[in-house]
């Protein structure tokens, strides 16, 4: 069961680039063990120098952005490798939402699986939020609300507080995130359909499930009887 998410609130870090790939989000150096500190490895290639020291100018190393909760990026965020560790690294760092005009297909799926809000914004919204972020080098906090699919400046005293921007997310995904639904549990509601489908497919397309691949039994419950 995923933890339910209804809102994300905190400082927004700006990555004003398109095509930010998952190798950049989490370099392979951090994927060599099952227990690496992925939050520390987030944007590792840019965040640390060759000696492993923090690069002062990198946004997430600046004092105001060390606790960032949101990322604003340009087109095609998360392209390249399918590594879900890119999403884990963002989440473990504390990022709860990435806003961008578009996301790469696999990253987009991976984000929802981990309740990372991947909000699609209009190019105009991107430009406005970018301008706003650039005007606040001290860091500006935003609130992302999943019920209204809006992002707004958090501080009630800020003159911009009443201004809000829309982002898009499929309604079913919003509901799943608010409820904290586990997708596998949902799919297993259809397990009779799945078993029937497999039975039908293996009788109609025997060539696809030949005995020298599947043995006599393919069902997990019988796997102990099967010998390779």
């Amino acid at each position, binding site marked *: 069961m995923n933890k339910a998410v209804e809102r994300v609130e905190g400082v927004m870090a700006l990555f004003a*680039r398109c095509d930010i790939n998952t190798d950049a989000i989490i370099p*392979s150096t951090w994927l060599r063990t099952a227990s690496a500190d992925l939050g520390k490895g987030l944007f590792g290639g840019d965040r640390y120098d060759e000696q492993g020291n923090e690069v002062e100018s990198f946004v997430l190393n600046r004092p105001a952005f060390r606790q960032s909760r949101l990322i604003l990026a340009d087109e095609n965020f998360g392209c390249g490798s399918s590594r879900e560790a890119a999403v884990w690294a963002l989440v473990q760092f504390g990022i709860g939402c990435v806003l961008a005009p578009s996301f790469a297909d696999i990253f987009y799926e*991976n984000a929802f699986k981990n309740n990372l809000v991947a909000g699609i914004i209009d190019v105009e919204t991107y430009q406005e939020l970018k301008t706003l972020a650039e005007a606040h080098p001290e860091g500006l906090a935003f609130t992302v609300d999943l019920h209204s699919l809006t992002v707004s400046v958090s501080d009630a005293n800020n003159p911009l507080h009443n201004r809000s921007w829309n982002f898009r997310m*499929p309604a079913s995904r919003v509901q799943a995130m608010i409820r904290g639904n586990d997708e*596998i549990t949902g799919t297993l509601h259809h397990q009779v359909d799945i078993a029937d489908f497999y039975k039908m497919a293996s009788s109609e397309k025997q060539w696809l499930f030949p005995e020298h691949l599947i043995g006599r039994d*393919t069902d997990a419950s019988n796997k102990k009887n099967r010998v390779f």
Partner: protein
Amino acid sequence: MDGPSGKSALTLFDKIWNAHLIRHLDDGRDLIFVDRHVLQETTSAQAFHNMRKAGRSVRYPALTIATQDHIVSTKPGRSEDTNPTGRELMQLMRSNALSSGIRHYGVDHPSQGIVHVIAPELGLALPGCILACGDSHTSTVGGLGCLGIGVGTSEVEHILATQTLALSKPKSMRIVYHGTLQAGLSAKDLILHTIGQIGVAGGRGFAVEYAGPAIEALSIEARLTLCNMSIELGARLGFIAPDDKTIAYLEHREFAPKDTDFVSACAYWSGLNSDVQAVFDREVHIDCDLISHQVSWGTTPEDVASIDGVVPDPTQVDDPARRERISQAIRYMDLQPGQTLSGLPIDVAFIGSCTNSRLSDLQLAAALVRGHHVSPHVRALVVPGSMSVKREAEALGLDVIFREAGFEWRDAGCSMCVSINEDVVPPGSRCIATTNRNFENRQGPKSRTHIASPAVVAAAALAGCIPDTSMMKLNAEGLS
């Protein structure tokens, strides 16, 4: 999909998708059956962990196959212990496979290799089949008319537990290749040129069918190379309709259907093509006559040019975001706008990866390097895609040709493409590689990557620099 007349034209993609549709889900996605699930050691450990934590087990272990390929050492004669850092993930893959009754192609298995090399080799990927793997280059098997879907680790867990995927059906796109590829050029040049034309996001949201006379002319191994880089177009899926070459390739493969099953399979496969009237959401046409040897200059696979070309000038780019990205790429790659690409000195030449590590790739490279020697300051290595490829190459004496020319001859694995094992390009070094990604830090921290075909990489290894077309022609003449 029925039209008003009762039956409307379908794309190849529609046909395969529909044949795997278990049901439409309430949220608009489709629940589809996964015929083959291939695991690799760096994206599956967490999936097994979470699956067990939820009290679940692998639904159809016989449809699941595991490999060790990413983090394995490629040092000849290696074991799980050769690269101690990788031992944990390798042992997890082995024990997870063993305890779930999953076939495991570990480092000590004679058929071990890169997942996208061994899936076709073993006959696990078949036309009309859906194969998923926790790796973005899974579309490679599209070269056989198989839908290869790259997935994340949560989806790996989902398939382990249910043998299905819940997906929004992608839109359809067809890229049609006209004309004839000039002699000496390869599928790698074709796909790099395509990515340069369409861009790294051009295929996002699409399933891409590659078609046209130039595609029909490609060998199966070349088709695998082409489909491999679909994700570099942003497309999760890329495939080619099966034909007689596909059938010839698959017959007698270990897990391909046999005897009467093979006959039924061939009958089924003959219907796997897009109907003449099928409509695609996007169609792109590429003229192969215009393509020359390609090499990347920047830090995304769309940053490509002819080897005779120059580094672009960002000041000529209108879009500010794109201008900034190109400027950054040029800085990272330590190049100058307008600089000629040929003649650029390289430090490392790498032939390998799921893109270009099959026997035909190695044969082509070996033919170019035979009787020559690698430039004195270049580290050159060949990493066959599988141990089967390695044995076949050795039977043909290719290992001797490469070794005598000064190349390292390694064991199979992903190696210097993802550089998650110990095969790393040193900081600041420039590597020309037959791989698929030239991202910043891809081959190691501060590494610089130029992607190209096996022919261009082999020529570069000898010359010590990016070759020009005249050098390629000279090398090709030496073959006759």
